[in-house]
Each structure stands twice: as C-alpha cells, then as structure tokens.
C-alpha cells in the first residue's frame, strides 16, 4: 500500500517534534535536573514514533526507535535513566531524525567531527517544525507558503480598500457610504492583523536547537559551559525567523569559540571553571530584543576605546576584515560572522548592539521589529518625493526656524543638545531643490546617538506594507524598501541606522545655495565665496588662498557693499566676513542675511580680530556657521572651515 505524500509529511512533522522532546529530556538527564517521569516520557515518545512509522511504512525509522527503546530497557523498571546512556542515545536520536527526514543516517564518526565549519556543527534552525507548545487536538498544521499567500492577499485587500476609498469622487461620499467604507477598513485591517498573527512563531522554534548545539561545541573545545535560555516564548514574524536563527547561531558560536575561556584559564583568573552563556528574549513594544550574554574574556580595551570613538562598539566589531588585524588574534574569525549579523539586523530595520567589559564578559543584543510586513512610519516630503521613516527610529520632528542657529558642521539645537544635521537629499546621494527656509528636522535615534535629517515638511504617520527594493538595488544604501500608499503613489521607506551613520560621518552635506539656484547635478561647478573686509591686504590674502584651492572669489569692502552684491545676483555659496567694518559691520550683515528667507541658510564664516569670546558669541548668536581668528592668520584654518561648509 503506498501512502500519500501528505500523510508522510504530516508524520515527519509530528515525529520530528517527538525527537525534539526526546533530546530535551536527555539533556535534562545529563544536567541532572530531569524529572522522575523522564524515563516514562522517553519511552512514550519512542513508542509513538515506532508505531506511527510502521503505519506509514517507514520501517527503518521504526526499527531505530525500537532499538532505542531496547537500550532503555532497565530504565523501565528502575524508573531512572542511567547517565552513561545519554551520549549514545543522543547520537541515536540524530540518526532517528535523519531517518525520519528520509535521509540515510550519517556515519557515527561524522556527528562528532571537529571540522569548524559553522553549518556543520550547528543544525540549521528547523524551518518546518512548528512550535510544539499547543496540543495537537486544538491546532492544525498548515503549509507555511499558504499562510504567506494569505497574508499577501490580506495586506493587498486592505490597501486596495483604501485606494478605492481615495478614488471615490466626493459627491458620491454620502454618510452611508462613508460609514460603510470605515467599516470595511476596520474589517480588512482586522483580517490583515489576524493573518499576521498566524505568521508569527515563537523564538523557541529556532532556539530549541541551541541547547544541544552549544553543549556539543563546548565539549569539542574542552570547555564547561552552562547555557540558559529565557523568554523564548516571544513571537516573531516567520519571515524574520530564519535570518534571526542564523544570526544567533553566529553570535553563539562566537561566544563559545572566543569568549568563554577554558576551565584552567578561568580558574587562573579567579572565575568559576564553568562559563555561562545566557540567551534572553524580550518583547519591547513593537520590537523584540534578543540578547546573548556571557561571562567570558570580554573585548580588548583597545577595541573598547575604538568603539567609544566611533560611537558604537558593534560597528567596530562588525567591520569586515577586523579578524585579520594581527593585534587582535584572539578575535580571529569573529569579524565575518558579526558583519553578516549586523547586515541582517539592519536589512530588516533593526540594530545590533554590543556591550563588553574586558575580562568580565560581553553582551550582544539583536533588536528587531516584531514584523516585517507592516511598519508604522513617519511620512515626510523632500523635493517632491514622499519618504517614510520607521517610527521606531524617530525621536521627534521639529521645525527649524530662525531661532535655532545653524552652527559649524550644520547642527541644530534640540532638547538642550546640539545635533549634527544634514539634508536628506544629499544624504541619499541625490540632488534637487534646496531646502525651504524653515525645514523640518527629523530627529533620528541610533546606537551612535541622535542626529537630525532635514526635509521639506512632515506629511503625517501611516502604517505601510513595506516591500523590499530587490537585489538590483541592494547596493544603493539607505532604503528599507518602498510602500504603496492610498493614492497609488510610492513612499520610499528609509533605513534610520544608515541615515544616522551618514550624518554622523558628515557625508556630503552641502548647504543649499540661495533659493532659486538648484544645486549642481553632474559636474560640480566651482563654489563661489564672497570675502568681506575693509582692508585691501586682508581681502587679497584671503582671495589668493581661496582661489588656489579652486574657489571663485568676489570681494566687498564693507557690509553694505556685500549686502548689495548678495541682493543683486545672490552670487555666493558662502560668505567670509570681518566684523569691524564701516557702514555695516559683520554682525549687521549677518543679521540682514539671516532675516531674508532666500538667504537664511547661506553659510557665513565670521573672522574675529581678537580670539575674543565676545566676537565669537555675537557671531554665533547672529547665526554664523563658524568663526576663525584673524590674529596670526591661519591659512589652513580658513580652508578647513570653508571646506567643511561647502567643500567638495
């Protein structure tokens, strides 16, 4: 009698779960915390597998299960499982798993091979094994692909409804129609959310295999490790699970390989011989935090310092190629895994965080959104395009008005802090219209700190189904994907982590030229500097320095002449001005510039005659972007400052 494929796969799923439970019991026996019913539980599971396998005609599975039952013979009577049985039974369970899956069991020697390939040592997270926590009679088994299709349809239906509502002409929108539309919206949103829940699974689905894997790895390396898992009942979207399982595998591998010392070393430095690794899952609002912490050797203080300077230890440790640095030999191999982990986290809109105390231990944290499918975003506009920033990465959105100064490397004041700021368009590597006179700053939070991203205006908040841009655009940084909005147009959803990094690195921030002259697109034309000083020699000295560096320079004798020139043709990308001048001094010129909407963001460098705090303060209060001191004229300081503001 041939058995249908469906029945065989149902058998495989259930039998696989039983083997999981068998392994769990065996591990608890080994740890010494097994319940008195352990032996009974093992027998029950083996017996069920044996019987079911016989029914579907998988005789090799049936005989394997029988052999395991036989070796437990004494346990039936004594009620306890002998410790020396654990290892052989674990091996047999591996063979049983292989046979269930329809693969011939690997030869006995291979299961304890010392080959350090990551995939070989750690079994891949079980993609087909659903969480074993529900009773069979109240749950059904469904092919995961079907749930994905259902979810896609539910999401599209909800969006389609909104597009339809949007497309209806106003005269058709009576109260009755409106109520029906609202109700429809609620029903479809409910449908979408319920379907989404179908797709979330417990973290334990992937972490279940880790206990065994860590134990095996530790044994291989002669280390003693106590591994604890906590909070693995938190749920994540199935779509995230696979990558997360891989990421956690890398992190755990690092912890066992590099962090935990051998028992002798640990004893020598005054620690317990047994090392500890703790995996903890925690739900934090619409995010999930999975932390792997250990009490091992921690990270070297050199790396810690580099991390502090870079603002993020995780960024430093996940640099590809770090492992090749000769001075950090004990981290060899660490670089590759962590780079992939960080990319995975950020690709789904999450972050990787690392804390460490040299000699004491390390904590690696993956913070991920609960679901990929629907993201709550803040909508913003820049140069005619709508962008979305996931709210989880946004602290606030504020209008930057003339009362907030734009200082030095373009910053804004926020909440008593000074935040570096940059134009969204230039951060993305694009070009177009200049920012409006009163742009909106979106305060983005990231491991490295908070930064401000400048846009034209905020356009509300929305829940969006974010679709990835695809492999062809994977080299274009900064985007999590695109989403179709109610009006049928696309919003481009941005990656807060990338934005924060780009601002912090001061990338490509060019303040706009006066409104009306769009930024140069292709070949950068020479930047124009207006030099204002009442002394001929000073004017000419600054001119020659700037022209030698490639700038086009015009000069004015005092504030009044400069002001007239600016009004005439707005012909400057930056102004360098003295303070003490007749007719209209530098401060007055600056105030006039800042008061005029078209010139409000024109960069102005103030040259102070004494290194006096007074001039500096007045200049900054009036809205200067930077100041340099005239005394002991420093050519490099001038070039650096101008370059910082408008240089290429």
């Amino acid at each position: 009698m041939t058995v249908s494929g469906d029945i065989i796969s149902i058998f495989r799923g259930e039998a696989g779960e039983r083997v999981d439970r068998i392994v769990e019991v065996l591990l608890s026996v080994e740890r010494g915390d097994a319940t008195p019913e352990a032996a009974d539980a093992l027998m029950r599971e083996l017996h069920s597998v044996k019987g079911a396998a016989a029914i579907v005609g998988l005789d090799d599975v049936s005989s394997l299960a029988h052999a395991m039952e036989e070796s437990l013979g004494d346990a039936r009577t004594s009620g306890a499982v002998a410790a020396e049985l654990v290892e052989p039974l674990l091996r047999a369970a591996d063979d049983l798993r292989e046979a269930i899956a329809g693969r011939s069991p690997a030869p006995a020697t291979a299961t304890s091979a010392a080959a350090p390939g990551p995939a070989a040592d750690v079994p891949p997270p079980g993609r087909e094994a659903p969480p074993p926590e529900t009773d069979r009679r109240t749950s059904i088994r469904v092919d995961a692909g079907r749930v994905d299709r259902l979810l896609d349809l539910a999401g599209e239906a909800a969006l389609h409804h909104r597009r339809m509502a949007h497309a209806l002409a106003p005269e058709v929108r009576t109260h009755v129609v409106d109520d029906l539309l609202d109700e429809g919206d609620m029903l479809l949103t409910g449908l979408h959310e319920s379907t989404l829940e179908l797709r979330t699974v417990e973290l334990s689905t992937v972490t279940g295999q880790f206990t065994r894997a860590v134990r095996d790895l530790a044994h291989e390396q002669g280390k003693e490790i106590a591994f604890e898992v906590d909070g693995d009942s938190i749920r994540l979207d199935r779509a995230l699970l696979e990558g997360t399982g891989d990421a956690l595998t890398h992190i755990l591998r690092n912890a066992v390989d590099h962090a935990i010392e051998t028992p002798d070393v640990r004893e020598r430095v005054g620690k317990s011989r047994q090392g500890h690794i703790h995996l903890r899952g925690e739900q934090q609002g619409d995010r999930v935090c999975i932390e792997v912490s250990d009490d091992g050797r921690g990270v070297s203080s050199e790396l810690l310092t580099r991390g502090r300077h870079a603002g993020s230890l995780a960024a430093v440790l996940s640099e590809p190629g770090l492992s090749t640095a000769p001075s950090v030999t004990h981290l060899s191999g660490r670089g590759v895994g962590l780079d992939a982990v960080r990319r995975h986290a950020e690709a789904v809109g999450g972050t990787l965080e690392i804390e460490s105390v040299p000699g004491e231990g390390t904590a690696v944290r993956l913070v991920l959104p609960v679901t990929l499918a629907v993201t709550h975003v803040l909508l913003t506009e820049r140069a005619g395009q709508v962008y979305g920033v996931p709210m989880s990465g946004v602290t606030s959105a504020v209008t930057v008005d003339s009362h907030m100064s734009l200082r030095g490397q373009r910053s804004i004041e926020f909440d008593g802090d000074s935040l570096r700021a940059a134009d969204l368009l230039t951060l993305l590597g694009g070009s177009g219209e200049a920012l409006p006179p009163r742009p909106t700053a979106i305060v983005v939070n990231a491991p490295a700190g908070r930064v401000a991203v400048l846009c034209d205006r905020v356009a509300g908040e929305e829940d969006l189904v974010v679709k990835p841009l695809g492999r062809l655009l994977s080299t274009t940084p900064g985007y999590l994907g695109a989403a179709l909005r109610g009006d049928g147009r696309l919003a481009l959803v941005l990656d807060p982590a990338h934005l924060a990094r780009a601002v912090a690195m001061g990338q490509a921030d060019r303040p706009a030229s006066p409104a009306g002259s769009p930024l140069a697109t292709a070949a950068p034309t020479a930047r124009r500097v207006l030099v204002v000083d009442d002394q001929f020699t000073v004017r000419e000295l600054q001119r020659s320095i700037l022209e030698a560096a490639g700038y086009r320079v015009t000069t004015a004798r005092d504030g009044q002449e400069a002001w007239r020139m600016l009004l005439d043709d707005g012909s400057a990308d930056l102004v360098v001005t003295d303070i003490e001048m007749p007719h209209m001094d530098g401060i007055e010129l600056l105030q006039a510039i800042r008061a005029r909407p078209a010139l409000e963001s024109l960069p102005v460098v103030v040259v102070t005659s004494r290194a006096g705090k007074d001039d500096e303060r007045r200049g900054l209060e009036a809205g200067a972007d930077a100041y340099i001191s005239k005394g002991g004229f420093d050519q490099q300081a001038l070039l650096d400052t101008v370059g910082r503001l408008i240089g290429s």
Partner: protein
Amino acid sequence: MSPTELQVVVAGERYALPVTAVIEATAFGDVTRIAGAPAAVMGVRPVRGQVLPVIDLHVVFGLPLEAAPRWIVVVEHEQVVAGLAVDGLLDVAPAGPMRPSESPLLAGEATADGALVGTIAIDALFERVAGVAA
C-alpha cells in the same frame, strides 16, 4: 529549434528578449526615482503588488533618450524580477540565426528584415546593473 523572442525598440535600435524570461509588458506609467541609485536604474514602479526596479536600456546601451519611454517589459531571471524601459514593442517571433556579439550584454546578434537585432543576456544585464555602485 530556435527560441521565441519578443522584439523591442530602444532609440530606433532593435533588441530581443527570450519570451521564457518575459512576464508581461505594461505601459510606462509612473516611475518613482530613487536618489542615489545607479544611473541605469530609472527608479521603481509597482507592478501587481510588487515593487520593481526599472532599468533604462537607453543608459545601458549608451543611446539617446528623446522622450519618456512608452513601455516597461517585466523580465525575470533566477528569482530576480525587473522592468526594462523601452520605446516600442514589436513582434514575438522565433530568433533568426545568431552570431556571437562583442558586447557582454548581448547573448548574440541576428539580422531580420534588414535590421540588426541584439538578443539581450538578462543575467549579464542584471549583473552589470547590480554591480554598479551608487
């Protein structure tokens, strides 16, 4: 047995795509530009619920772009789907006898009705586009 191809027009030149790779052809519509994307990628466009990158064949082959392209041909290769922006759609016909081409982006060239037709190698095209840094 010669494979069937969809012939398209780009700036007056003729190119062909194996029909097995073509999913559909649709009017150009609204393409959302992506700041920072490689020059060959005009932007993205939603097609049947998916967000697809739109590759500008004018840029790829160094041809002048006179007006907005009128069509997008959606093609797929090894799970990667993209739209190719072209000016016109011609026949679906069996490929003529093909000669190897100098261009790595063309699987071959043929002559049809007195015109040269270049058969695009979609895998090479995707690699070229994806490999170009922003």
